[in-house]
């Protein structure tokens, strides 16, 4: 039998990012035999419908949802129907699967990872590493319907999960182990200290990730990247750019870097802390460095061409950095008090935030009910002076 896994024509591999350079397509047409289930029937009494694959099992199989399939390492699945399940050395490696209401986790092995699919009734997932013409691809393609989660577990215990947000979601796992590409879904990396989430829309979104986390990713317009760790719980939203490259380790083409709790962003972007805006850059030439260790934010506008360049939120205040001036607005909703010092290079200002007080030289603004306001009122009660 000729292996001809159905791969959608829309699932073209990304080619413009450099991730795919050097990839070589190799024709991989080979005859595949059909799995004879009678050879793998569990001999135990009462185990009808359960099949135990051994490491000599290779080929293509048809499976009905009532079959329990246990692979060569003892992991079992049930509740999936497929016409073309591929088996190599007793492990399930591909196919087009449809889940029923009793579906278990579906484990599909590739040469890099075991990928587990969490599916509900009616969900389908398609796993392949060859094109419709039988050409071997340099990635494993996973095509998922909405709601399916695909999970990889690293040997460190860290996990990478892709959740499909549409019926056309794609999850590419490149055969170099560190490159992924996702379409219409959310990629989440989790270990005991770190959670990272990258969101992808219709565009083929390329990601570099290792067992220690997402290292680089492209944010398309209105998409976000989030990172939660000890000192921060931030989300970066690409509000204006067609593409925005974020990195968590040094790389020359990054527009935003988040390394050692220091975030540097270039251009128009929104950064949220705990789900509320921390800052929003409105000018394409804005460069912002937010050091979460020292709580110092430094902003510069290299080629200002707007009236307003940056909005910063601290506690109950919004600071607007604008053309030749900086403005303050009280806001009822409390934002994170992450910043204690705001250095504006363009406007030559250093603004301090402490105990609900915003101060710049002899200028002070007090948050109602804050410790800063209390101390001011107490001080004035003694001397009727200024704070």
């Amino acid at each position, binding site marked *: 039998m000729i292996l001809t896994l159905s791969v959608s024509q829309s699932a073209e591999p990304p080619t413009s990012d450099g991730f795919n350079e050097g990839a070589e397509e190799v024709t991989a047409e080979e005859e595949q035999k059909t799995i004879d289930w009678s050879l793998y029937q569990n001999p135990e009494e009462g185990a009808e419908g359960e099949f135990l694959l051994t490491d000599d099992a290779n080929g293509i199989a048809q499976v009905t949802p009532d079959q329990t399939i246990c692979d060569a390492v003892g992991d079992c699945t049930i509740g999936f129907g497929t016409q073309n399940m591929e088996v190599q050395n007793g492990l399930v490696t591909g196919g087009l699967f449809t889940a029923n209401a009793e579906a278990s986790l579906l484990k599909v092995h590739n040469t890099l990872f075991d990928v587990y699919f969490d599916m509900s009734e009616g969900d389908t997932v398609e796993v392949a590493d060859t094109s419709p013409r039988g050409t071997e691809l340099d990635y494993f393609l996973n095509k998922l319907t909405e709601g399916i989660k695909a999970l990889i577990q690293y040997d460190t215990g860290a996990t990478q999960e892709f959740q499909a947000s549409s019926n056309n979601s794609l999850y590419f796992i490149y055969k170099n182990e560190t490159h992924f590409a996702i379409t219409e879904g959310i990629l989440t990396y989790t270990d005991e200290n770190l959670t990272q989430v990258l969101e992808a829309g219709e565009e083929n979104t390329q990601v570099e990730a290792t067992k220690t986390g997402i290292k680089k990713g492209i944010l398309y317009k209105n998409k976000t990247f989030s990172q939660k760790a000890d000192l921060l719980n931030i989300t970066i939203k690409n509000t204006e750019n067609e593409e925005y490259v974020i990195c968590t380790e040094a790389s020359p083409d990054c527009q935003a870097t988040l390394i050692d709790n220091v975030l540097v962003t270039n251009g128009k972007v929104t950064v949220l802390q705990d789900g509320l805006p921390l800052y929003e850059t409105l000018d394409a030439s804005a460069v912002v460095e937010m050091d979460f260790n020292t709580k110092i934010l430094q902003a510069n506008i290299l080629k200002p061409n707007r009236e307003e360049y940056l909005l910063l939120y601290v506690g109950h205040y919004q600071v*607007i950095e604008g053309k030749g001036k900086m403005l303050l*607005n009280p806001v*009822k909703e409390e934002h994170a008090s992450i910043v204690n010092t705001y250095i504006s290079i363009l406007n030559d200002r250093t603004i301090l935030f402490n105990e609900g007080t915003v101060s710049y030289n002899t200028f*002070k603004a*007090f948050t*109602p009910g804050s410790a800063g306001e209390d101390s001011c009122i107490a001080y004035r009660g003694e001397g009727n002076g200024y704070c």
Partner: protein
Amino acid sequence: MATAKKGQFTLFVAFALVLVVLIVLGYYILQQKNAGEEIAKIESIADARQAVEACITDTIEDNLYALGYNGGYVNKNSYTFSSFNTSYELLTVEEMQHNLKSSLERNVDNCGDILEATPYELILNGRPAVTVSFADTAIINVDSLGIIQQRDTAEIRETVTEMEKEFQVNIPQIHAIVEQIFDPEGILIESYDGYAINIFVSPEYSEELLEVHHEESGFVFRMTRIV
């Protein structure tokens, strides 16, 4: 036993009554003493004149500082004032001058009242003539209010001196600072030599209060804006 308790209660009531009487008596004596001291200070026609002139000076200063505290108005008007007890609108410098002038014209002749318990009285010339000038300094002039004479003889009399007070308070500059800080898009984060700027916000985040403190004079200008 019951008789003993009744006796204790009567003793307690008597003690409380004595205490109340003592407190009332003490307060009365203190009041009398203060009044006596006030009168004692005014022992001559010169004392009377000086007391009235000091009152005029105090009234001018009080009115000027009230003008700043109330955002350009000397007197509070509960219908137009904010939760911070100050004005919502920034008046022009000329309007503030006018408000201070009007207030002084209404109030300064009350300085004659301090002579009520003395042998002297203030005979007013008529409506007090007041001029107010707000420039680099605030200059306030109150023309002579009239004459002070002894009640029982018109032969002992002195004319109240025309009073001119100059304060190192630059109202036009403060006005400009307020205009700048209350930018239509927000509160301008700026510092000014010689001034301290304090911003307060109401607990409902519906109003913001600006205080401009002149460090040298202690003059404060306060104004509220609806957020």
